[in-house]
């Protein structure tokens, strides 16, 4: 044994007190920096809230909240200004719900297929393809909606006198865009359902379809609902598709063949022009932004709450 105790393990030496350890002292700034990195997220949130609500506040000094929330005319860029947000809000919600008509049936059905039916090889091919679909930039969907969905599908079915800008094309494009989100989150939820539940049902003589729809689907329901809410939230915040294909005209309507400006489309419209700070137009985009922020936040929190409940049940 030749570890001739280089200087010897200093038996008598005391273990240094925490504050005096040089190495530790040198590292303190590192820990502080790392904490700041994590805390930046809080600063960001505060930044968003402050920025949005500061301008929104000055907006509501000029426009009454009642008019904003109940008015059905939105013409802040005209000489005769009206500040009723309902047309924009309605358009956003209308198109988001429309997107769910595509994303929900197709997304859930493919989730059931991938989770309950698909052999491993099919899964390993289909899942990456859906991931690609999720990774396509939204401006590309906008192009696709304007150049293909609107003329080749909507106008094909409803006649060529239909406006090329219409809510339906936007909804279809958004539906395709959020389909992978619905399908992958729902699939995760269904796969989290314990095997024992499935085996119990198979043991009673149920077939695959019955197990999938009557056992797995209900058991995963809260996770599936959460996935759907997240998808709606994504559609509500979606910008480029609605800006390109749903038009810029504020239109309080439930006709999917008409053009209607969504909240995000309005923000884009104003941003493309020159709007100096301090004008009412500048404030409007922050007021709309606040509305958008609150809506998506509520939806996200709801979804997270549901997911947490779902996890508690099965994990």
């Amino acid at each position: 044994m030749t570890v001739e105790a280089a200087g010897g393990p200093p038996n008598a030496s005391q273990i240094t007190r925490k504050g005096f350890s040089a190495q530790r002292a040198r590292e303190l700034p590192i820990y502080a920096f790392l904490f700041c990195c994590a805390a930046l997220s809080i600063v960001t949130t505060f930044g968003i809230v402050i920025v949005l609500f500061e301008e929104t506040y000055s907006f509501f000094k000029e426009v009454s909240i009642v008019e904003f929330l109940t008015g059905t005319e939105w013409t802040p860029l005209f000489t005769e200004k009206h500040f009723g947000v309902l047309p924009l809000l309605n358009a956003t919600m209308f198109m988001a719900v429309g997107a769910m008509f595509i994303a929900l049936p197709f997304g859930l059905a493919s989730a059931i297929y991938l989770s309950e039916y698909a052999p491993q090889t099919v899964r390993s091919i289909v899942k990456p393809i859906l991931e690609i679909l999720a990774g396509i930039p939204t401006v590309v969907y906008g192009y696709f909606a304007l150049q293909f969905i609107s003329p080749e599908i909507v106008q094909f079915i409803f006649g060529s006198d239909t406006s090329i800008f219409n809510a339906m094309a936007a909804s279809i494009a958004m539906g395709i865009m959020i389909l992978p989100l619905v399908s992958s989150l729902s699939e995760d939820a269904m796969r989290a359902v314990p095997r024992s539940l499935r085996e119990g049902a198979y043991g009673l003589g149920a077939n695959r379809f019955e197990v999938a729809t009557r056992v797995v689907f209900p058991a995963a329901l809260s996770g599936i609902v959460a996935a759907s809410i997240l998808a709606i939230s994504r559609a509500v915040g979606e910008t480029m598709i609605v800006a390109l294909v749903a038009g810029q005209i504020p239109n309080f309507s439930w006709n999917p063949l008409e053009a209607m400006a969504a909240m995000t489309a309005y923000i884009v419209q104003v941003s493309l022009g020159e709007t100096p700070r301090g004008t009412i137009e500048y404030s409007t985009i922050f007021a709309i932004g606040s509305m958008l922020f609150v809506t998506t936040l509520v939806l996200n929190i709801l979804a997270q709450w549901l997911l947490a409940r779902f996890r508690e049940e099965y994990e």
Partner: protein
Amino acid sequence: MSTQTLAYDTAGRNAYRRVWARLFHTVFLCATLFGIVALAVLLITVGLDGLGRVSWDFINGYPSRFAERAGIKSALFGTFWLMGMTAMIAVPIGVGAAIYLEEFAARNWLTKIIETNINNLAGVPSIIYGLLGLAIFVRVMGLDRSVLAGALTMALLILPIIIVAAREGLRSVPPSIREAALAVGATPWQTVRFQVLPPAMPMILTGVILALSRAIGETAPLIIIGALAFVAFVPDGPLSSFTVLPIQIYNWTSRPQPEFAQTAAAGIVVLLAVLLSMNAVAVILRNYFERKRKW
């Protein structure tokens, strides 16, 4: 009830059940194919419209009032500038936050708030980040419509994604490695710096590339902070004004003339090519290091 009747009924009912089960097997399969078909149609549409327009002149040309002469050089360079700077800002901060949360954070209310908050930020629409960037970076900090303002905005936007990816990377390093380092007297930071971060790096890098590929297609926040559509020069510094591929595409798409639609499609082809190569790099990296990993 006689057993015969029961047997007969069961058989009939089972046949009926089987038909439904078969039918829906097909329905589910078709629904799954829908997404794939949609992707195929999208790619074919874009390809048919745009592939013919892609040429060296297109890639090396500046925007123009004439669709047939318009090129994407400034947008392509703008995109690379923006992504480079976004990465330089977001990666250290994102990885730092991930290290703090994964390795050092005490399990207390503050950590919980930060984690919940990051989750919520991931769900905030990108256009809201544009408003934040407009008010803070463009106006208050006076960065104007510069690459820097855009990069800061984009960095905030992709931070949550990078943090999640980096945490996953750190988590893939087994705890026994941390114990080994601590047991020879390494400080928590030395443990992370020398033994946890190096093996986690490939996975973190993969996540970063994927996060950047999300950012590369983002259009809305950059429109809000006022990135220009018509830029006839390549950015020459962080404070230069700029345009990016998606904005150029948006601009061309929104024009009524059909020739510009082709130009837009050509732009999309280039954008998708960039995206595809980034994803390919990420996948190759991931596979390579997963095979190399021994634990």
